[in-house]
């Protein structure tokens, strides 16, 4: 079957099978930033923005994005780089494999929550696993990023 949707601001039409997952479709479409770490919705690596909401692409059928809008990190390069600089300044990106999914969720949080405190931030990002960093460096980066965003406003 064919699915038509908007990917990173551009219309896309793709031939899919009934059981194709959004994760697989996005990688076929060249969005290699989208990673898979667990297949059981535990790790958050496959997070993409579906109609503006962070969603786990490994557990969404590709057919369900018909007529909807999907953003991956490929479509949010400027924001990714902006937050990424904070992450890299802490050395907390490490292997980088969980970075795209994590950054996706950080960007979603920055849009969704107004002046979140550390507990809210931890709660919001708790579905994003990272095995390298121990999370502390990520949290330092998020804290500084949120603070800068607030000051810029």
């Amino acid at each position, binding site marked *: 079957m064919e699915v038509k949707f908007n990917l990173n601001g551009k219309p896309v039409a793709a031939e899919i*099978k009934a059981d194709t997952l959004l994760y697989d479709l996005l990688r076929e479409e060249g969005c*290699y*930033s*989208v*990673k898979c*770490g*667990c*297949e*059981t919705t*535990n*790790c958050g*690596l496959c997070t993409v923005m579906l109609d503006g909401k962070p969603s786990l692409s490994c557990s969404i059928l590709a057919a369900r994005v018909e007529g909807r809008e999907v953003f*991956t*990190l*490929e479509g949010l*390069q400027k924001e*990714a*780089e902006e*937050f*990424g*600089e904070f*992450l*890299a*300044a*802490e*050395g*907390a*990106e*490490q*292997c*980088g*494999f*969980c*970075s*795209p999914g994590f*950054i996706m969720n950080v960007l979603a949080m920055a849009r969704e929550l107004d002046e979140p405190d550390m507990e809210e931030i*931890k*709660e919001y*990002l*708790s*579905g*994003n*696993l*990272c*095995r*390298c*960093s*121990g*999370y*502390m*460096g*990520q*949290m330092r980066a998020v804290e500084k990023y949120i603070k800068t965003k607030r000051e810029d406003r």
Partner: protein
Amino acid sequence: MQVVNQAIPKVDAKALVTGKPVYTDDLAPKDCLEVKILRSPHAHALIKSIDKTRALKVPGIECILTYEDCPDERFTMAGQTYPEPSPYDRLILDKRVRFVGDAVAIVAGKDKACVTQAMKMIKVEYEILEPVLDFRKAKDNDILVHPEENWKSLCPVGADNKRNLCACGKDEKGDIDEVLKNCDYVVEQTYHTKACQQAMMETFRTYTYMDVYGRLNVVSSTQVTFHVRRILANALCIPKSKVRVVKPRIGGGFGAKQTSVSEVYPALVTWKTGKPAKIIFTREESQIASSPRHEMEIKVRVGADKSGKIRGIDVYTLSNTGAFGEHGPTTVGLSGHKSIPLYGGLDAFRFSYDVVYTNVMSAGAYRGYGATQGIFAVESAVNELAEKIGVDPVVLREKNMVKEGEVMPAYYGETANSCALDRCMAKAKEMMHWDEKYPCKDMGNGKVRGVGVAMAMQGSGISAVDTGSVAMKVNDDGFYSLMIGASDMGTGCDTILAQMAAECMNCSVDDIVVSGVDTDISPYDTGSYASSTTYVTGMAVIKTCESLKKKIIFKAAKYLDCTEEELEFDGKKVYSLKDQREITLRDIGNRVMCNNEDSLSASEAHSSPVSPPPFMVGMAEVEVDTETGKATLIDYVAVVDCGTPINPNLARVQVEGGIAQGIGMALYEDVVYSSSGKNYSNSFMQYKIPTRLDVGKIRVEFESSYEPTGPFGAKSIGEIVINTPSPAIASAISHAVGAKIRELPITPEKIYYGMKKQ
């Protein structure tokens, strides 16, 4: 220092944070055959027959390979220097399957769907055998995991396949029985650590293709690029010259990828079919057929006299290597050699061990490499000793810890030339407010907070074995290329090695281009394991830079028509100390590209006769719910002596990441088997690694010594950091509610029943 000891971002940071396609699966050719493994449902069985007729008829299937298609020469998948201490006990596919999940057949086809369909249609008839599942009963059991005649052990490690022994041995000094008999206080306990998964976010994966010269090209997520070349040549029985291995960015390793877990399968497919092939392990496969930490049961006897002087330590380790012996003979050594030497001035010690084969998944290398298990046991025993004597465990350690300048008989007789363990303890005590918090505080709401302490050490590379070499050259306009054979697995060795080179050449990191590992191009390096890269490869960088500087000055002398002795190089230019003559590096770089007979490149190797230990102290504050037994980590303080931190940010994140993994090991992570050997911990649903809500606060400080044999005074950092959480958390819980948990992970159930038992 201008560049070293500076917290500069990683050289590959921008690509990683913007999600660029830099990992194995991102780079694999689109027409790759998909490779999947049909796995055994039995813990121990002989394959009687495999019928693949129907499966081969599935459209898109390229080949189905079984043991009949594989060479009958045994090899090891352990990424170690040849001759490997790990026994040669593997075939790519074997007629005998040895654990639930062992490889039975390799299926390759045009896509995942057809391969999955074909796998269901392969008919395998098994002769089911009784497995050895209890590692305490494995030694000299009638059932043998490796009865085969062509099993072989290359090194004298005490291995004997006819006894289910992967290794055994003993190291001792003095008469330990006599010393302990005369001690006023003796603790004798048994501790049990379980298999743990490294659970790096990127599972095992490899793609392979044939190149224009008819050579097998392998792109793989590995820590041991050069070893993989040898392992594949051994496995396929082909010349090493026929194999090239390249490491792209890799999504974490932590030792898991020091075993060649995934490479042989697509390699065999490509070698047989000539077509490109790739394998991507699912998380399930990464959980059930990989290379986790060795389960160990450790008996400790530790004795002290009336004054609290520790006089002797006796350690016996029983290690479970599972179905194959990867890293079995070596991990066990660290359980004694890197726990006992934490205490100086012992009258006697003994360390003995057995490593046994069983019918569960093969163990491998995991950060800490046996030291983690041994330190849990010895540090827990010392904490129990403190309680028995009635002394603060910090005070007991201050009295007995190894000091700088002391010889460590249980650490191969090496001297602790750099050791700030005393300063680490003082700093940790201050950060934790230990004196106010020890032993515990009742919070008045059914919850009690306790504090616990542990010390740790590790090594820096394998002495007289690990070899690192690098090559560096001057290019036009005077920028440098640095070619390294070490495998950056996300920890940032590409960056810190560039920092060292920049420090030596008096330039900026931006002036240096780092090229990662390609066995055809990179100078040889044993690989990124055993905490070796900073210490061993770092020294190779320093040596190479010295050679290159000499060559730059030699060439400048020719251009300036003067002697080398009168010239200095300041990083930008070579100038005369006598007169005004000078030439820029930029000009030299450009001029050597025309009419030149002097190569401006250098390559040096380094190996170290010693392996200087980094040291650290960890302190945990844990809150225990007395109603449920649930333990929550509140605060973790880690103070580390890794010598000079080359990049303080990256070193800090190493510590934080290692502590978090250690917290997972202490409280949550467990590989659980059914009574028939099926692995229940086969996903992140069952196998819980810590989230950011589970690790509390992790606070890190450095108390640096200066290691005279290391680059800029540096020692290692990567592994030691996982060693303190288990014993420190166990002790904190004991201080809070009295429950003594000697088996990991420390679950609420164990704490609850531990409280009830009192």
